[in-house]
Each structure stands twice: as C-alpha cells, then as structure tokens.
C-alpha cells in the first residue's frame, strides 16, 4: 500500500488513534477512584475549614466530617448545603459561586442560622491573578471573615484599610486586597449572597 494513498492515511490514522488513546482511557479508569477520593477530600476539608472544625490527617478529617457534619441539600449528587452543631450552637453552611475578575469563584460559607455572624469560610475554586486577586486564598484574608458580625447591608470590602486584615469582629468591614479591589468586591458580594442564602433557610435540615 502506498504511503500517500487515502486508504493508508485513513488506516494509519485510525490505528495511531487507537494505540495512543486506549492506554489513556485505561489509565483514566484506573486512577478514577483516586481522583474522586481527592475531590471528595478537598470538598470535605473545605466544609470543615468553613465550620472551623480542626483536623490533623485526611483520616481525621473523614472521621470529623462523618461525626459532626450533616449534608442537608445536594445538586446533581454533590452536597451544596450543610449543618453542624458545634459546642451546642447550630450552624449552617452553603456553597455559592459568583463571578470574579477572571472566572468563577466558588466558596463555602458557614454562619449561624440567622446569618448574623459568619462562622468561617473556605474557597473551593478560583482563578484570579496569582499574587493579586489570587491572594483571596491567603490565610490573613480568609481569617478576617471568621466570627465576623454581619451588618444590615452585609459585609463590605474597604479599600482604605491597612491591607493586613480587619481584626475587629464587630465591624462589618473587611480589608480589601491592595491592587485587587475588583476581586475583593466580587468576593465579598459572593459571601453576602451566601449569607442571604443561609438567612433564607439554606443549610437547614
């Protein structure tokens, strides 16, 4: 068969595709349980972080999740709302997505059922500029929201802060990230949306 004939080209392309794609399909199937387990651990550890429940190891996290967290709503088989009783107090958490500067930001926010005080939050997904908007993932930024009192208008990002985090838990303001005011505003809007969801009964058993 001539190498430039249509039959050879079609046959060669078909065989090459099978030879290269088949091992990938097998490798994908073989590693699928591991990938699913990684995704599940990432989600569950984010929920525990949002509720401010500590853990040391992945096994520890699984045990804490099973013992303390109740999944109260799901979408397409994935949980989107949770409830937990911590030190006798009831808390709710919801998953919420919204626009960032470059793409969707997804967070899990935990608060009391009336949405008056944030328990904590954790970012599930974001693709903001590394070093600028991407700094929403830094501990000092996330920690600002922990035990934060929510004002009547919700929380607000303040551009004039020190840039090191607002530590007054009774104030509804949080320090925006210097050089990333748009991302800070988007992020706080998503958090306020999540608090509104909780107020509306999100996460309730």
């Amino acid at each position, binding site marked *: 068969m001539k190498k*430039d004939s249509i039959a050879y*080209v079609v046959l060669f*392309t078909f065989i090459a595709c099978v030879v290269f794609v088949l091992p990938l399909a097998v490798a*994908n199937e073989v*590693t699928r349980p*591991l*990938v699913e387990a990684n995704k599940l651990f*990432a989600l569950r550890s984010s929920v525990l972080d949002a509720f401010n429940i500590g853990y040391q190891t992945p096994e520890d996290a699984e045990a804490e999740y099973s013992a303390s967290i109740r999944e109260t709503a799901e979408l397409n088989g994935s949980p989107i709302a949770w409830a937990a009783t911590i030190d006798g107090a009831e808390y709710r958490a919801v998953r919420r997505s919204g626009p960032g500067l470059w793409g969707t930001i997804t967070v899990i926010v935990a608060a009391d059922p009336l949405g008056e005080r944030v328990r904590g939050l954790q970012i599930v997904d974001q693709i903001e500029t590394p070093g600028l908007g991407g700094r929403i993932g830094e501990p000092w930024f996330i920690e600002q929201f922990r035990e934060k009192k929510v004002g009547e208008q919700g929380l607000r990002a303040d551009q004039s802060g020190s840039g090191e985090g607002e530590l007054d838990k009774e104030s509804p303001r949080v320090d925006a990230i210097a050089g990333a005011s748009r991302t800070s505003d988007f992020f706080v809007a998503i958090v306020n949306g999540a608090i509104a969801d909780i107020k509306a009964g999100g996460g309730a058993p």
Partner: protein
Amino acid sequence: MSSKQAKIVKDGLWFNNPIFVQVLGICSTLAVTNSLLNTLIMTVGVTFSTALSSWTLSLMKGLIPRKVRMIVQVLVISFYVIVIDIVLRAYLPEASKQLGPYVGLIITNCIIMGRAEAFAAANPPWPSFVDGLANGLGYMAVLVGIAVIREFLGFGTLLGMDVAWPGFIPWTIMIMAPSAFFLVALALWGAKSIAARAEAAKKKSATAPAAAR
C-alpha cells in the same frame, strides 16, 4: 556520551537554547514564572513530553504519511501531556489544582512540536530523545532563573518559603506577566552579549596566528 550527543546537549542548553535562540515557549514563560514550584512542575512536564514525543515520533517517522504528519505529532504530544495530567490529578492533586489549565497547554508549547519537526523527523530515536531532553532542560534552566527572580521580588518567598528580610516590600509588578517580558528580554540580551563576545574572541584567536606569520 559521543561527541555528536554532546553537541546536541550543548545546543539544547546554550547554543540553540529554545528561549535565547529559538524564542519559543514564551507564552508559558509569562504564565507560570511568578511561582517557582509551578515553574518546576511545568518545565519537568515539558522536558518529559519533549524527550518522549521526539523519541516516539522518530521511531514512527518511516510510517507517518506526510499529509497527516502534524496531526500525528499533536496526537503523540497530547498522549504524553495527558499522562502527566492523569498522574498529577491522581497523586499530586494540590499541584494539579494550582497549575489548572497550564498542564493541558503544554500540548501547545511550540518547543515540543518545534523539536519534533526540526530534529526528530530527520534523526534516529536516541539522538531525538537526547535533543528533546536537552531542549527541555535548556527551557527549564531559563524559566527557573526567571521564576527565582519573580517569586523572590514579587512575594519575598522561594518555593513558598519566606526568605525576604523584615520590612521587605514586594514588587507587585514582578507578579504580573509584563515583568516576565522584561526579564526574558534581559536574559536574551545577556545571553546574546556573552555569545557575541565568545564569537569575537574565537575570531581573534583564529586570526592572531595568521597575523603573526
């Protein structure tokens, strides 16, 4: 190592460096070099893909019809890149999450297809492997150098560890893509100057004995 292979290695690392001389792979240079860890993972991925896809394509070169040459190259390159993606997702989920779409984009890295076309298509498998490896390492050396500067000046860290002195003020520009342009340009300038000086010295030493005669 034979002298031919030594020459291939020297070319990939310096004389025909993919960044300094071929000016390839610039997109990823801008994208990932504000983090040393991401740069290391990305460049290891590119080195692995370039070496193995050059080797595979060289093995197959007698069978590939010219009409579908580039389709087959992309298929082979994609195969190795997806292997990397699967391994990262399964065993290094944090790195996979941080690199996000960049791993998939290795497929479009010009260096890999450039070496497949320029070298592997006309050379035996083992030299093609060495050529891919040397070009990947040459690319890695330049990007790691740029990443060290950008991460240190941009964040005050290296591999995420705080290495700056107290009171250090991070240079925000170093985190943004334009700083990579400045640094690549400076690196090109430096490399070209060194190469030109070496060339001039070589010419001078070649003409000196003739003048003495």
